[in-house]
């Protein structure tokens, strides 16, 4: 799915946070010359920015507060990645939310990239309620712009931490639509535009796509520091496996260039990657995962 690219030839890093790896992988998936809609800050925006810096110079992105094609002032604080002056800097256009929604509605926004709190086998996303709505459990933040992005961008890339509780057979609440129940035409019957839907899921351990027939999540690639079995074991449902034995790609680790740019221009204080992220180190000819103390500031928006 990702395959070879400039990263395959570049000097590999030997020490990185899992979330840094995830951002680098998502960046390699970015298609040059397309327009992205990134909701909120963190991984989605970093991936597009990193790709633009290294692999996809002609990619542009919009944000739901009306920013089109910005050249943001980096670095910016992860608490201030949306609806703030620095990320809107040097845009080609400032409009408003309905203006961005219109552009998405008519199809100018090719890709969406989203963080997902809870995701199921058909790419449905829950960011509304964990538990039994609304009588037991925990209220979360709502879809925000994610429902629009998931409904109307042509291709949706989801980012999430690789944790069993994130991958559930059926989300507690569909906040933003994937392939719904996976049946043919399900999105159309719900009123959503044609030729849209989840395209990839990028975690700190693996990359998935969706089987074109069954619309079920399918494993495409794993990190060099985990096994296919470990990836599947840490999910609440069993993904399909792409191709036959051996067709699951092993992803290249981050390159020194990727990390240098990410660390010096984006996550300069480690606020993003330090949250809920292990450290991965190349020692004694093999990758080892190390616990790292978590200093949580959270992603605030």
């Amino acid at each position, binding site marked *: 799915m990702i395959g070879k690219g400039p990263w395959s030839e570049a000097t590999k890093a030997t020490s990185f946070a899992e979330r840094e790896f995830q951002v680098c992988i998502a960046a390699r998936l970015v298609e040059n010359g397309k327009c992205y809609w990134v909701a909120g800050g963190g991984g989605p925006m970093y991936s597009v920015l990193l790709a633009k810096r290294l692999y996809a110079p002609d990619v542009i992105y919009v944000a739901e507060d009306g920013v089109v094609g910005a050249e943001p002032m980096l670095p910016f604080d992860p608490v201030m990645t949306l609806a703030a*002056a620095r990320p809107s800097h040097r845009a080609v256009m400032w409009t408003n*939310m309905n203006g961005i929604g219109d552009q998405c509605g008519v199809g100018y926004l090719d890709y969406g990239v989203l963080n997902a709190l809870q995701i199921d086998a058909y790419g449905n996303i829950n960011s509304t309620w964990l538990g039994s709505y609304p009588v037991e459990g925990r209220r979360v933040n*709502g879809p925000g712009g994610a429902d629009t992005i998931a409904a109307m961008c042509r291709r949706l890339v989801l980012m999430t931490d690789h944790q069993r509780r994130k991958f559930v057979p059926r989300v507690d609440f569909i906040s933003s639509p994937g392939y719904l129940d996976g049946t043919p035409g399900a*999105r159309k019957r719900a009123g959503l535009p044609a030729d849209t839907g989840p395209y990839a899921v990028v975690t700190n351990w693996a990359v998935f796509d969706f089987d074109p027939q069954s619309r079920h999540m399918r494993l495409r690639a794993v990190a060099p520091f985990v096994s296919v079995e470990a990836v599947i074991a840490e999910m609440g449902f069993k993904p399909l496996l792409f191709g036959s034995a051996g067709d699951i790609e092993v992803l290249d680790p981050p390159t020194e260039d990727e990390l240098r740019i990410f660390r010096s221009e984006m996550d300069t204080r480690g606020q993003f990657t330090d949250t809920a992220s292990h450290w991965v180190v190349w020692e004694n000819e093999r990758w080892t995962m190390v616990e790292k103390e978590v200093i949580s500031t959270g992603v605030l928006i």
Partner: protein
Amino acid sequence: MDGKALRILAEGEGSYLKVDPDAFRSCTAQKDRRMRSKLMTAAEAIQRYVADGDYVIWEINYLQRGPAALLREIIRQQKRRLWAGGKFTWVAVAMLVEAGCCDRADMGFFVGGGPVTRAVLEKRLTIYEYSNLVMTARLRAGAMGVTFLPIRSLGGTDGFKYSGAKLIEDPYTGEPTVIVPALNPDVALIHVHQADEYGNARAFGTNISDVEAALASRKVIISAEEIINTEEFRHKPGLTRIPYYVVDAVVHQPFGAYPGEMPGSYASDPAHVIEVFGAVARDRVKAYLDKWVYSVANEEQLLSQLVGMAKMAELRRRASGVGLEAYRS
């Protein structure tokens, strides 16, 4: 499609403000078209124009260009049973809920956390489910004077079930199409860079849906960093975002978006931003409100006693470097 009728395929069960554009027109008919000064304090504006039970919409959030001062004043005055239009907002709904001001909210985006979860589980708060754009689409319908708009999202979600949306056969294609009801809030709170005493208003930079909110709402309260002369509006009419006659109150409120950013005027205060987010996330909003809202009688005291001149000067300094001229046109 049966030729002369359109089937309704599904309907959300969420409550929504009654859709009645003619009633809204009766309300706009009463507003004064004359240019008369509407300058007043935040306290007066909230007292006069926010009633218990009102549906309140605000632009935009507590992080940037939000009507933070007006929201705090609502909490100080202990308004009750408000219905919050929580599209693309952040911590303010949790603050209103914890302060006992709010018992219903339309969800686009706001920080859930302890106060909101507790209120829902204790049935002190009912939430109806939309998304940011669906909410701005509803405001757009309200601002157009129509009853609904078709949209191409929300369908297929569980949110649909707890919303006022319907899935109908499209009158032109026969395909399933989602429609959402127009929203005409009782009150809009809008913080801008510049206004005149009559209510003509300019805001610079990106924005969410302030024009829609102003046109769609029964009562419109503008707070402004700066009060400028009407001559300036006549000099560059293309910069006017909101015309005076939709506005009911104009509040001169420097640092009215604090702790958020006012692009081109001042930066946000990250320490405060982290403090208020942490208060919501760790369910300590009451203490936050004691410290930052109830402890002072008004916004002027908040600025002079809690924020201080040095901090304000620093925030103004930090706003430079973002291309200030971009925020003057």
